[in-house]
């Protein structure tokens, strides 16, 4: 598995908790050039905004901020990590592979890196939306920006 860490349940837990407890990208942007979308959940807790800034055809910055559970918060933070530096095509491909993984379809694990830690989300079907809401919101921004 081409991840930058050893894939044991213990390590996967640590990655999730680390991104939830010490998020790298959890803030509201102070500068210009960001596009944002609100992400919320019908089961009424997760409630945050995602922000994306592009420069020269690539993602220059990705942020999120708001109230989240561990799964939605950590998955969105990991996504922000991975989006930065990617062009649209790479970003869509990454998101598509991740969503395929969550939906338990075939997926290309070579691009997922830390996002692989959410491979078991399907065990808790009620949390699938949490694991994907940040990702689908960012995908929506990317498509909007392309137009």
């Amino acid at each position, binding site marked *: 598995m081409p991840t930058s860490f050893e894939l044991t*349940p213990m390590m996967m837990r640590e990655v*999730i908790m680390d991104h939830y407890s010490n998020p790298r990208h959890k803030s509201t942007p102070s500068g210009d050039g960001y596009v944002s979308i609100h992400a919320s959940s019908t*089961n009424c*807790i997760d409630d945050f905004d995602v922000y994306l800034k592009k420069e020269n055809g690539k993602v220059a910055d990705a942020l999120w901020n708001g109230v989240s*559970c*561990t799964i939605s918060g950590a998955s969105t933070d990991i996504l922000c990590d991975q989006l930065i530096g990617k062009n649209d095509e790479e970003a869509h491909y990454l998101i598509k592979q991740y969503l395929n993984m969550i939906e338990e379809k075939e997926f290309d694990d070579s691009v997922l890196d830390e996002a692989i830690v959410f491979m078991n989300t399907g*065990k*808790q079907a009620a949390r699938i939306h949490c694991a994907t809401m940040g990702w689908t919101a960012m995908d929506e921004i990317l498509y909007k920006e392309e137009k």
Partner: protein
Amino acid sequence: MKLDPIALRNDFSMYRNAVKMQGKPLVWLDNASTTFKPDCVIEEIVRYYSEETANSHRGDYDLCYNIDQKILASRKTVAHFINSEVEEVVFTTGTTGSINLVAFGYAAKTLKEGDEILLSEAEHASNLLPWFKVAELTGARLAYVPLDKEGRITVENVQKSLTPKTKIVALAQVGNVLGFVAPIKEIAAICHRNHSILVVDGAQSVPHMKVDVKDLDCDFLSFSGHKLLGPTGVGVLYGKMSLLLETDPYVSGGGNNDKFYKEGTVTFLKPPMKFEAGTLNIEGILGLKPAIEYIEKVGIENINAHERELKAYAVEKLKATKNCVIYNEDSEAGIVTFNIDGVFAQDAATFLNSRGIACRSGQHCAKILNDFLGTPATVRASFYLYTTKEDIDLLADAVAHGKEFLDAYFI
């Protein structure tokens, strides 16, 4: 008489069938959301579809007459249960439908600009949002009774909040998050002295405690069938006849009119038929009767005593874990609202799910209350007549192991 929840479980197929969740025996602690149905309710619904199918309202044949009689019998059972007149029982789609009928059929018609609608911050969305719309339509103002420091609605605070402009006071008898019992009888008295109408949300009270509308002297009372062992999609609006006569039907059509003419005039039937246009949820109405009879057979006071005992037990057990904060230790209802230390409510509920325990997490549709509690979300465990101390032991054991919440995904 002390009830025996284990014996009662024989009447519930959800227990007899040993339903599992995540491969574990189901521990059902979401009764404030909905409840299991005893055999007598399911049998009645099946009987309607397998032996008694017909529509209600003035049919000319026996099957239809039979259904009309059964709907009347269900209405009588409800009336006896809440001590109202039979004609004061309106069948609706549920508590939400009932409150919306009062809001749009009565309040939107009678309120004027500058009038006030008094609510509380502990209310469920179904007892807030219809009033928001009525305020928008009429120019009335929304006001809120301040909760005391524990989260209770007190007579003193209602008294302080009433003004000469207060026309409607809409409060839950039992809050769906904290489970405090509001002193409705005393509140009704001060509302009436102020010439205000008291609209009571009984969704969380009627299934769990004796509610006597004549004793309380409330003006309207709403509740749902499915929270008291009955079918989903059916509920009740009780209203004093004088107010029901003033209330417009906000759904019209077949079955609620007396005469109508092409130039647009219509005379409606008397309450409760006036509000029951269209084909009713007949299976729901029929199923409501055995549900209430089951509760009456067990005894509402016995159910209430059982839940109080469970509440005290749950508080004791959860406190002993030293791993959670409880938000409603002293409330009367069988509802415990808490958070596991360091675990977001939604993650906690997922962890409980992984152990087969059904609890609700979130804001429980009472989004304003979370500002009061100082937390974005909570976990809620709620009990009923079939809940056992063993259920609570399993909950407490899970809470004690809350730090391992990501096990939900990895074990």
